[in-house]
């Protein structure tokens, strides 16, 4: 990374998730771990991990990417399009990233993965919508004594919506639209008892598996540093998972009384959107970490991946503690004051081509 015109390294102790920013899936090696967040006045900030492996980050104006390094064509387009979005959230960054990947700018696999992911999300939404509707029919109980298939599902749904609408003080059309909107909001985390896993539960399972792999691997390590890295990574991951699972449980609990949920939706939909989005904010950045670990195929590659991951572990903002009904100690990453011994030349020279290819594979896996 050129050190011309670079601002000083700044401490990085975000108190909110907005301040932490959202990971942007750049493929340029020097931009690994970069986050986007709203700037103080207008536009966006780039939050770039200290490339020397020390604590702190570079915080730069969004348009400074070109001055920092030679971004790939994918990253140029991604940063241009992100600059135009009105709000930064994991879901919006993912949508833009998919659009760029679907064009093929990060390679054939990422293109296909982006197209598949859009289909998968669509299916998740359909399943969640259906389950919410089924739950509403069940909770209202108009057809408790009816035989199966009589009347058909469409009629049951229509009659149930018509029954509940006056209780909420809205029209049946409004209720139907609200149920669809709730399906969109809930689809990333799914609803309790959903037969197939939605994206967030899939990611939770992936992160649990990665932590288990890391722990097994670290038991075979003799160097205290490596064991300490694994401890720190798994500790932050466990905190994150605990809060994310609490968030999912809280959100799922709302569907136990759908008429009540619809009334809340009528009063303050943003509050429900915010609550349902918490697990995504919490887990933002962890899927890349899991796939960096998966890319390592032998012990030396695992050691290198571990160092890279230690640099990328998302800091848990203080806001996370307000989200959980759990007794949590302070963020273990915040106590981490070590310099991670990363070779600064690693992401330049001939290695760039290999690393871009790897980052494109990770992008395909995380679409």
């Amino acid at each position: 990374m050129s050190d011309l015109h670079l601002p000083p390294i700044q401490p990085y102790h975000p108190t909110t998730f907005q301040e932490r920013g959202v990971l942007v899936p750049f493929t340029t090696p020097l931009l690994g771990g970069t986050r986007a967040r709203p700037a103080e006045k207008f536009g966006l900030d780039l939050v770039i991990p200290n490339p020397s492996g020390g604590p702190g980050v570079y915080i730069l104006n969004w348009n400074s990417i070109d001055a920092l390094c030679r971004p790939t064509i994918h990253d140029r387009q991604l940063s241009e399009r992100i600059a135009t979005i009105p709000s930064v959230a994991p879901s919006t960054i993912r949508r833009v990233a998919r659009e760029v990947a679907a064009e093929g700018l990060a390679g054939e696999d990422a293109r296909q993965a982006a197209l598949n992911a859009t289909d998968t999300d669509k299916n998740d939404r359909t399943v969640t919508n259906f389950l919410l509707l089924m739950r509403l029919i069940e909770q209202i109980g108009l057809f408790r004594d009816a035989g199966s298939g009589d009347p058909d599902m469409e009629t049951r749904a229509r009659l149930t919506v018509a029954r509940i609408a006056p209780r909420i003080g809205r029209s049946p059309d409004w209720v139907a639209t609200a149920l669809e909107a709730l399906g969109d909001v809930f689809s990333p985390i799914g609803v309790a008892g959903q037969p197939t896993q939605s994206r967030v539960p899939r990611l939770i399972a992936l992160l649990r598996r990665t932590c288990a792999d890391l722990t097994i691997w670290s038991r075979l390590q003799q160097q205290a540093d490596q064991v300490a890295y694994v401890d720190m990574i798994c500790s932050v991951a466990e905190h994150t998972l605990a809060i994310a699972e609490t968030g999912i449980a809280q959100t799922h609990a709302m569907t136990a009384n759908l008429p009540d949920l619809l009334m809340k939706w009528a009063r303050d939909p943003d509050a429900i959107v915010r609550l349902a989005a918490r697990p995504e904010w919490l887990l933002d950045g962890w899927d890349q970490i899991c796939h960096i670990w998966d890319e390592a195929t032998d012990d030396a590659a695992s050691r290198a991946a571990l160092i890279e991951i230690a640099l990328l572990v998302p800091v848990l903002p203080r806001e996370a503690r307000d989200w959980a009904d759990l007794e949590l100690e302070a963020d273990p990453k915040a106590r981490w004051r070590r310099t991670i011994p990363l070779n600064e030349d690693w992401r330049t020279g001939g290695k760039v081509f290999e690393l871009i290819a790897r980052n494109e594979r990770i992008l395909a896996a995380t679409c």
Partner: protein
Amino acid sequence: MADNATIQRATETRAIRHQVADAGDEKILRIVALLDEKSAPAGAQAILDPLRPRLAALRPPRPLRFERLLFMPFGSLVVPVLDWRPGKAVIPRSVLMAFGQTVRAGLGPAAADINRIIQDKTTHDTAAIMEAGEILWPGAATCLARTPAPIGWAATGLPDTVYADLARAIASVLRRAQDLRGMVRDAVIGATGPNEAALRRLFDGIAKESVEGCGMLVALLLEELPHAATHLRMLLAAGSGTPEWAILRQTMDRGVDDLLTQMEHPTGFDDKIRNAPLHEIGQEVARISALLRDIEAEADTAKHRPRLHAIRTKLDALCRQRFDTGLTERLVAPLASPTRAVDSAAQSGMETSVRDLRLLETAARDIGSAGHYRAQLEKATATVSAAAAAGILTPVRQVRLVELLAGPEAADALYRSLRTA
């Protein structure tokens, strides 16, 4: 006197050796697979001996046998028996089986554990190699340091007096095999800096090792680790005056000399650069280039300068040749005479090849011919544009290939022009 059957077998082996000497890569790989399947080490050795340099370049997966695993840490230090002399820091191939049997007997039940791990595995199964190596290498080092009575030594064709010195030298390397292997992989990945603690551990107690063992260790470091010479110099500077210092100084001088002699030889790196899989060449050239630079950086390098110059010239020519061939075969020819439009698999294949070629070119520019590579890449970019104009490539696939060949700025300009067109 040999019986008729033996003479017949020897004649057949000679005939096969002649046939395979000129065989193409694919044929060689088929022969190796066939011989490995037959599991007839003695006959196979005679047939494979002339092909060893090409096999080293092609690196086909071979069954992970006990002896093969035992000698993995020695890399190119295993040589035909005719290239071996007492005191030379190399191992004659004919002793591998005897040492394997001796170690196997010395390890006792642990040998069975190793066999269980390596069963049905190949030389490409890194995890199995590491797992079994962790048991085998230190165990074998302890065993051979005691120089137990050898098993099957008569078949090596070498005098009994040679055994003890070789056993001790092999033990010196095996004792450090895991550290050495870890350092080499760290260097290949490049994410972490040099592990000085591991390097120090490598030379801990070196004064107690035999001269041959020391020589093998230095030769392996110089050959496998791009910046080994620098590290060794650092160690020398730190330990001036100690017994280790004298031994290291002497073995390093000899190691550098041997390595230069090896690189000057037509089989030095020529086969590897010409025949190794494309994805390995860039790394290999970067390693040789770093090594040459480090040797040049030595204070008393003047004596090596003419030799280094000749080696660089040879390496430069080989790199250009491999780059040009690779670019033509993997990109220019398929685009210039396509049978149909480039599909997803073909595009991914071309991108991988161009990436490997850029890795080679980035390393080769350090040796020379920067202008040649620039011109070749420009020509290839023109071919890509022509293919896109002919409808062979979609606009985005063209952009991707231009990015790899000419850089992201050129790709960005093209992308914008295509969007506004």
